[in-house]
């Protein structure tokens, strides 16, 4: 294609985007609830002989109050410690011996237990998950083991990883009031002090059918699965749920800033701003802003810092998709000899520019296209589908959130972008972390000497 054809090509894309958005659809999602409050989401897909099963509990970092940080991860670990029917380690052994895999994780708002198996194994996985939901006993011995698991994960993933520590520092800085500010593995002293009563209270409040969604996707027959799920999960008792008070993050009077001297080989900078949770009407606009500023090699920050100023080796941006106050952030890994002060000015300059100058229609269309591609890329596998459905059901209340987001970004205008940027990109709303490598003793010098 010749350069002269680019403009016509862009107009053509504009038209096609409209056609695509209007026709955006996927397979039907079946939703029902059992009498005990368990929500069941099913999506049939017979293209491969596989199924994905995910049990999501609506509990995460946001449910942990000071002194009890890390308790959700302890509960998650306890659910791998065995039941009366299956001893510790059996769930993984059975699923792997059937050709599948299984795992779990806790995030800001939701705790996930998930498996993907050959479709013949679906019934086995449902039996195992029902047994885990009903039969996880809480004992002092299991608590000790689970606390040890969480401590070890914290040691390897947070304390021993400089990126883990930077991440922890960033969230501590970003959230003063909201529990999102602490890591999912909690603070070491909290983990040490959590006792069996704490555990029982948290576990019984949140790890129960009325606070769970079971998502199944793949090669299955919906009618038969609804019947089987009702048999296996229908008799599990739910307890009354206490209503949780939402916690908001108070305004600051200045930006929050941290300078970390750490050996990541090169200097780096992270600049973020507090934004509302994912259900807020500004979320689609913020998605577009993230793409214009931070996504891809043609994004404004990349163009400025990597191509023009040559201060960075890589830049990127993103949004924390959370139920309650979220973050929009941009970061740059700088070239080894670039001053951090200059890089900060360049990044700030691009963020200021989007508040002051109207973006072009071409930039807007590019950002919208990126949202569409991202939607499809993130819903390819059965695991993707169950993760998206389970998360969206809890943190937005809308299982079709992804599709609705794609449609919503289509209506974002250039004027709305300036208004939204001005609303959130304020110094009093900003969190900056600068990482500078130590002056001496960096690992690379040792490596070169060894060479």
């Amino acid at each position, binding site marked *: *294609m010749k350069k002269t054809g680019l403009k016509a090509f862009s107009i053509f894309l504009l038209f096609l985007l409209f056609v695509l958005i209007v026709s955006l659809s996927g397979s039907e999602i079946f939703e029902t609830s059992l009498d005990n409050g368990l929500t069941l989401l099913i999506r049939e897909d017979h293209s491969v002989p596989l199924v994905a099963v995910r049990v999501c509990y609506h509990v995460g970092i946001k449910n942990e109050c000071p002194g009890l940080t890390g308790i959700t991860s302890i509960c998650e670990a306890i659910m791998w410690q065995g039941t009366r029917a299956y001893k510790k380690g059996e769930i993984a052994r059975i699923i792997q*011996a059937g050709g599948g895999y299984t795992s779990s994780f806790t995030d800001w708002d939701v705790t996930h237990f998930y498996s993907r198996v050959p479709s013949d194994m679906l019934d086995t996985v449902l039996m195992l998950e029902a047994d885990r939901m009903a039969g996880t006993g809480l004992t002092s011995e299991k608590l000790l083991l689970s606390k040890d698991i969480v401590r070890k994960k914290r040691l*390897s993933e947070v304390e*021993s990883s400089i990126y883990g520590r930077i991440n922890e520092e960033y969230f501590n800085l970003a959230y003063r009031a909201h529990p999102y500010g602490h890591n999912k593995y909690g603070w070491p002293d909290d983990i040490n002090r959590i006792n069996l009563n704490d555990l029982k209270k948290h576990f019984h409040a949140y790890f129960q059918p009325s606070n769970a969604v079971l998502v199944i996707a793949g090669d299955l027959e919906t009618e038969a699965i609804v019947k089987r799920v009702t048999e296996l999960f229908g008799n599990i008792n739910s307890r009354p749920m206490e209503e949780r008070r939402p916690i908001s993050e108070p305004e600051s009077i200045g930006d929050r800033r941290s300078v970390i001297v750490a050996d990541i080989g090169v200097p780096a900078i992270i600049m973020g701003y507090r934004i509302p949770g994912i259900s807020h009407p500004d979320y689609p606009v913020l998605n577009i802003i993230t793409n214009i500023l931070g996504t891809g090699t*043609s994004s404004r920050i990349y*163009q400025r810092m990597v191509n023009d100023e*040559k201060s960075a080796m890589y830049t990127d941006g993103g949004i924390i998709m959370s139920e309650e106050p979220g973050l929009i952030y941009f970061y740059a890994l700088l070239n080894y000899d670039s001053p951090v002060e200059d890089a900060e000015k360049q990044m700030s300059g691009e963020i200021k520019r989007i508040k002051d100058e109207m973006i072009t229609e071409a930039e807007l269309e590019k950002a919208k296209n990126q949202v569409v*591609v991202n939607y*499809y890329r993130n819903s390819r596998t059965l695991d993707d589908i169950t993760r998206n459905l389970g998360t969206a059901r809890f943190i937005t209340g809308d299982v079709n959130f992804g599709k609705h987001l794609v449609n919503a970004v289509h209506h974002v205008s250039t004027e709305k972008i300036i208004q939204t940027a001005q609303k959130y990109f304020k110094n009093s709303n900003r969190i900056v972390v600068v990482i500078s490598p130590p002056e001496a003793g960096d690992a690379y010098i040792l490596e070169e000497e060894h060479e």
Partner: protein
Amino acid sequence: MNKKRIIINAIMICIISGAGAYSYDGEIVSDYTDFSLSNGLEVYLIEDHRQPMIDFIMLFRTGSATDSSRLSGLSALSLTMLMNGTENFPGTALNNAIDSTGGILDFTTLRDGSFIEGTFLSRDFSFALEALADMVQRPVFTEENLEREKRRFESIAMQRNSISSARLRDALYMNNFGREGYGLPAEGRRAGLRRVELDDVKEYFTHNIHPDNAVLFIGGDIKADKAKKTIKKLFADWAPGKDVYRSIVDITLPDTLEIIIYDNPDAPSTDFVIGRPAVPAVSDRAAALILFDYILGGGGEISRLWQSVVVEQALATVIQSRIDWSRHEGVMMISGNASNETAADAIREIMAVIEELREIRVPVSEFEDTKNFFYGNFVGQYETTHSSLSMMATLNRLGVKQDFYPELLKRFDQCDPDKLRDIAREFLNPNNMTVVVSGPIRKLKPGLTGLGNITVIGGGEN
């Protein structure tokens, strides 16, 4: 065009309680066509209309294994230079045009191959291929772009060196493959990167980025006939190139257990890697090695290493094993993390597990569970068009046929616990393995003394 299918036939005799038995009888996991252009470009095509997307991978069958120590990083740097403008899309116009579609383009260089991977909406199929064709046939290399990329790559090398796990892997490779080719990290080292000049990049391009060294894997929401026409139109005139650079594979097996300690006095915990070269993916022994690796540490939390070192002895926080497969000798590798106080004992315990597996026959139930995992898991490798293309490109990079996996499953049936023990005896001989650890020497050295030949890098004891 030849229509081909990957078909799996397997019956899993399950010993697990309440799970029954499963069978795959003629299950089609991938349906593709392949053809070649007269210039040597091979094409694999999958038609899949589940999503309005297309994916492609262009594989060049030479990678960083061709790099010399003097110009380390040349192959990765040269590949990235393709993204810095073409005759039809000068400068940043190429990036802008690609991003404007929402599409994504990535560049990866591994030891045995280099990849350009793209994901686009299917409506942009023609444009995506035009951009790819332009990039590989008509790139424009400038001094200014090279200088910028060199500085970026130097920074990437420095950042990578600050990551403990990457440094340990690099040291393991260097100890077994020397300081050229296979022994180098794909991203290169600073000294080598600094020496690269524009003529080196142009020369690399002439020898390696040409159709008879390339394979195009493409799939998604496209009609095969239309795709073939477009591919012919865009790539048929791509001229064949000079002879490809040769991979440098120079294996040096230690004759004793080598222990390399990176002294990191402030490290909160200790990372470790243990390994040695194994066999090429084409080897007859690959099947037994895959099963053995799963039992050793590849099976995650049910593996022998996890159960012994993490659960029973509580000496490590995490541990796993894997095989870094390659067209030449891959690397059998155990990696993990432990507290500084228990790391030396963790390594001794790993050696004890290895010694045990060299002596015993694993129980039949454990052996059958392992085979069943692969029978069932195999289908998942072809779950999406993207994963199918990745698998096909990987197999091609490794120099094995597209029916590698079904053939592998047949070979599993010829394995037994005795063969696994033979594999353990051959490939897990502590006397020619390398242990690399990163942590505080004062806590590590006393526990590791006597286990093997210790070399310390950095800190006060160098």
